[in-house]
């Protein structure tokens, strides 16, 4: 008796839910935004703030009436930092969920694994990963929001040049980020007429870089030291650098531009400089900085919503989503080719990461100036330039 009643109730519920779903489908077809991010796993420090940002702003946009009168629907998968599952989820987004645009790909590996698919399926794709290979050479359907490592190298070397430094010692990680950064630094240095006189590397699992740093110190003519790396390595390099008492100006890359790096490196970080997003110093931006409002709003909204510290990686997702929305609005539809073309022609979008000016030859749209040079003073970031 009870069983039949339960069964009947269940049937009713199913019918009701199905009815509701049909009703909402009739109201307005949502615009589907697909995303695959490394929310868990070794790259979760990228994917987690990115997902939170996307969720929060999709909600916000929907509350404000959506885009083109249609609500946004976010479909996201977690690729656990694994390139082949990133590719599979990208395929699922394209073929099964049939999304209109994809904003995702936390790591360069995940992005590049999905790129051939996007190109073949002709879906606009905004990547959130750094390496320069993603948009150089330009790929028709692929865009990205973070600055490339090449811009970081340009920014650092330009700052060195301003200080009259021409001979540098380089120490980099052997992981993807470090080695790509190393290649870019060597190229940029040559272009700018600077000389890399010492070139050392360390692997991700090394716990002491004293030997490499000693080699650099003993190289004649070194005027400044640059460390291109990600994760734990740079913090160890920084501590070793202080322990060895090296007096030369010390630079880190944008890879460690976060508050957690300051905690890891402690007082050893004092005086070092790095290129970073203005998001680290929202309050010291000058009043006439066009990014000031965007940066402050994003920071306060994110921190209010999630009760967690804002990170520059989440900002890449913010810019990615806003670029997508803007392109769809400008295209007036979700037709892939129209959206792609609108994306390619976006000009003067002021985001958290920088001001984007896309063009058919530049699917990143940022310049090296979008990086700010920060210096660590009294355990805090200080805006230098």
């Amino acid at each position, binding site marked *: 008796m009870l069983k039949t009643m339960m069964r009947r109730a269940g049937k009713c519920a199913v019918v009701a839910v199905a009815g509701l779903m049909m009703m909402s489908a009739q109201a307005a077809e949502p615009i589907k935004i697909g995303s695959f991010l490394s929310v868990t796993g070794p790259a979760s420090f990228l994917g987690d703030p990115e997902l939170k940002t996307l969720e929060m702003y999709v909600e916000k946009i929907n509350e404000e009436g959506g885009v083109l009168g249609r609500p946004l629907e976010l479909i996201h998968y*977690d690729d656990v930092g694994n*390139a082949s599952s990133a*590719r599979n989820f990208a*395929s699922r987004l394209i*073929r*099964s969920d049939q999304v209109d645009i994809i904003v995702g790909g936390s790591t360069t590996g995940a992005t*590049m694994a999905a790129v051939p698919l996007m190109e*073949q399926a002709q879906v606009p794709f905004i990547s959130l990963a750094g390496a320069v290979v993603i948009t150089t050479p330009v790929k028709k359907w692929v865009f990205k929001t973070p600055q490339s490592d090449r811009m970081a190298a340009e920014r650092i070397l330009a700052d060195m040049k301003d200080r009259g430094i021409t001979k540098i010692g380089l120490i980099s990680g052997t992981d993807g980020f470090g080695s790509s950064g190393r290649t870019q630094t060597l190229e940029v240095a040559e272009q700018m007429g600077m000389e890399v006189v010492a070139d050392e590397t360390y692997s991700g699992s090394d716990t002491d870089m004293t030997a490499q740093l000693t080699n650099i110190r003993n190289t004649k003519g070194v005027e400044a030291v640059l460390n291109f790396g990600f994760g734990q390595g740079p913090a160890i390099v920084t501590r070793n650098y202080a322990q060895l008492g090296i007096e030369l100006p010390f630079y880190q890359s944008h890879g460690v531009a976060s508050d957690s790096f300051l905690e890891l490196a402690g007082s050893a970080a004092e005086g070092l400089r790095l290129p970073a997003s203005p998001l680290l110093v929202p309050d010291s931006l000058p009043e006439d900085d066009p990014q000031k409002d965007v940066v402050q709003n994003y920071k306060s909204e994110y921190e209010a919503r999630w009760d967690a510290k804002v990170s520059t990686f989440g900002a890449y997702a913010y810019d990615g989503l806003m670029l997508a929305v803007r392109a769809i609005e400008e295209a007036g539809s979700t037709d892939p080719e129209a959206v792609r073309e609108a994306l390619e022609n976006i000009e003067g979008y002021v985001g958290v990461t920088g001001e984007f000016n896309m063009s058919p030859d530049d699917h990143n749209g940022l310049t090296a100036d979008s990086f700010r040079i920060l210096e660590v003073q009294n355990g805090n970031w200080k805006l230098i330039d």
Partner: protein
Amino acid sequence: MLNRFMQSRLRGLMVLALILIILPAFLGNPFHYELVIQMAIIAATVVGLNLLVGFAGQISLGHAGFFGLGAYFTGIATGTYGWSSVPALVVGAIAVGIIAWVVGRPILRLKGHYLSMATLAVGFIIAIILNNERAITGGPDGMPVPALDLFGWELSTFGQYSLFGLDISGVQAWYILVSVVLLLAVWFAQNLIESPIGRALRSVKGSEVAASVVGVDTAKYKSLVFVISAIYASIMGGLYAHFQGFITPAVASFEFSILFITMVVLGGMGSTLGVILGAVVLKLLPQVLADFQELETVMFGLILMLTMIFMPKGLLPTITAIVSKRMRKKAGGEA
């Protein structure tokens, strides 16, 4: 006589072929095809690994290394040097076979945990090489692989083809291709098992000492099956690279090796169809659990634990045993 032959060796193959023919009726969209294609590629690899683990009783925790080598060989030969796919796959398989033979001779002298450690190390070394030889492999960021070309046909998953007057999509063409490859892989494996080599291998598994006493050259047979399973992995790795269109050193990673061995254990060591089932289940899991990503590893562990406790022989052998027991009971009751 014929009937008995059919039953023993070909029944499994027929069942598999039937499933592969019927399956497209249940595949709703191209993404489902993609999943099944990947399952078939992984399953064929695991069928090869099962020869080593299930029949010869030797363990390999570094099999993804050979899979990765095959994938990268194909990727580099076709992508960087412009070879066509078939020679790349064949030469890759031969090269990996030779590598397996060279490393297999010394390490297969080891037994038990020591053998596991040695194969583990082989896998690690291959993964490290793929990671560090940036100029050739593209390093940790991986490398793109061109679409498979088969006797002048370029088989892209987004293409459209016509076969015997039927219009088929790229994924369907791939599905047909990997189905044939999987059937060939199973057919070869089952024939090998029933051959004198197979009997020798099983005797090695039973007791290596006894096998050598009755005149089986155990070292030779162990290396042979190690090489065969590595060649399986290499060819399937090459196909996988073509299918994915992009490879990273993760294809040679330790996690991937463990996944392979788990598929063998879960599906049923020594059961060719069983390990295919194992591959299907474990390949499906991440997609089914896509909404509960955190749970994936937990489920993975739980499945392995429950299998070891309740079905030590693996999924398929346990199920068949239960079914045939039921049938016998029923038949007995009626008699």
